[in-house]
């Protein structure tokens, strides 16, 4: 199995310690990671996804524009025929005033498989990637 994760910042966000950290965490969990770095516009993100065909796309952003940049990113991904089904998650400090559950629901409605925007983010994310990997292994076996 490919096990490839595409990790990316959002269009307006230049923070990268989150990306450096998540790359290590994902690699330690046995995934291959392509880290696109900071300030990735939706079109570049979608182009890279088409080229690399990742098993999971992880968006990370902490600058407070996540509730605005997230929907634009996933809209572009879903507009590409080959990327209709790839699971996409987002996490970090998404708003400018702490977690906002209503906005997180809007992100799920926009197509994000999971939203990790609070104190439990890393714990839940570890669970998510474990389950996700198991599902895919099971899928490959059957």
């Amino acid at each position, binding site marked *: 199995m490919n096990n490839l994760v595409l990790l990316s910042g959002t*269009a*307006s*966000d*230049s923070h*990268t*310690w989150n*990306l*450096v*950290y998540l790359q*290590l*965490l994902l690699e*330690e969990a046995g995934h291959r990671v392509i*880290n696109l*770095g*900071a*300030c*990735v516009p939706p079109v570049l993100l979608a182009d890279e996804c088409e080229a690399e065909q990742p098993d999971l796309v992880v968006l990370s952003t902490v*600058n*407070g*524009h996540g*509730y*605005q940049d997230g929907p*634009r990113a996933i809209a572009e991904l879903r507009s590409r025929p080959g990327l209709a089904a790839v699971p996409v998650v987002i996490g970090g*400090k998404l*708003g*400018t*005033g*702490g977690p906002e559950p209503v906005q997180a629901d809007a992100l799920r409605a926009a197509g994000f498989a999971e939203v990790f925007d609070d104190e439990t983010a890393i714990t839940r994310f570890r669970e998510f990637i474990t389950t996700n990997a198991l599902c895919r292994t099971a899928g490959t076996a059957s």
Partner: protein
Amino acid sequence: MTGFADAVARAAAAGRLVVQPRMGMASPLEMRAGLLAVRGAGATTVGTLTVDSYTRVGDHRAALTALHDGARLNGYPIVSHHPDTTRAVLDGLTGFPVQVRHGSADPRAIFGALAAAGLDATEGGPVSYCLPYSRKPLRDSVEHWTEACENFSGHLETFGGCMMGQLCPPGLLVALSVLEAVFFRFHGVRSVSLSYAQQTNADQDAEAIRALRVLAARFLSDVDWHVVVYAYMGVFPRTRAGARLLNDNAARLAVRAGAERLIVKTVAEAHRIPTVAENVDALESAAEAAAQAEPEQSFADTGVLAEATALVEAVLELPGDPGEALLAAFRRGLLDVPYCLHPDNAGHTRSHIDDTGRLRWSSAGAMPIPRSSVDRSGPAPDSASLLTALHRVAHLHDARTH
């Protein structure tokens, strides 16, 4: 001298540290209220207008959409607001210096907007506003900053003393701060400030600030300059008491090492964008801590000045103007910022915090740093130890106040 630099010089002559917030909100009314509150704070203050992330990356359409939809922004979109709007924000604030803080590798539109609004102070730099803030090629940033500087007649502060905010050993921070100021000077800027961000050990920081002053005196003798300290720019303490202690310690550091200005951080730093009240509180708390601190004349020399001098000299010896020299230096890895993902950074250096709390090189890549300064005994480069290093300052300050 500009209004901004003049105010700092007057305060310094009176023995007072100037304190300044990081503050920006999308709404002109809130921005104005914030500036008025900063002016009214019980401290020697200058104001800040911090620009939002869309404007920083040049996506003015997204900034306008957010303004239109009433969505919250993490700063004031100075290019999207009409110059008259920004003038109205500043109306009646004559005599109160306001600096525009942005984080843009292409600052031309921002420089234009601030001049149109009658402002004359800003900050950044071709390296420090590219590597940590953009995916644009460094070459483009150098070009844009050249053009911006050549059309600018105000006060310009380098952000080079901060870079990624944390885990960059002081010698490189000092060198980058000096090199960007040399770049500004070369392109006609006559009034500059050099930054240094508080790191993990107060003695190492004081030594670094002294080194910065020595190099500024040597390389910038014909322009007006002062030193600005940033309260810790990495992961901040989560508790109010811890955050306040760290900010107060930054003020003590600034006075101790003879810096003229301090940019504060608030108790909200670890969590969200601060309110105006939290900013005023941080300014007043820092001013109080500063008032009780004393300048020191001498500091232990552990080699920060020698390291910074070697880096600055190695870069300025390269052919071409300071911009060309910076580009060549990054291409060859003579300058190489640890943990920076930007494609134009070589990425061969690593750093760690040693047992005494000082920042050390774990590997110095191709930088002209003596082997004796490299300490290979750092922790394994895994996610857990990275997080421990990033949170060290926060944990210490949270723990000390419990």
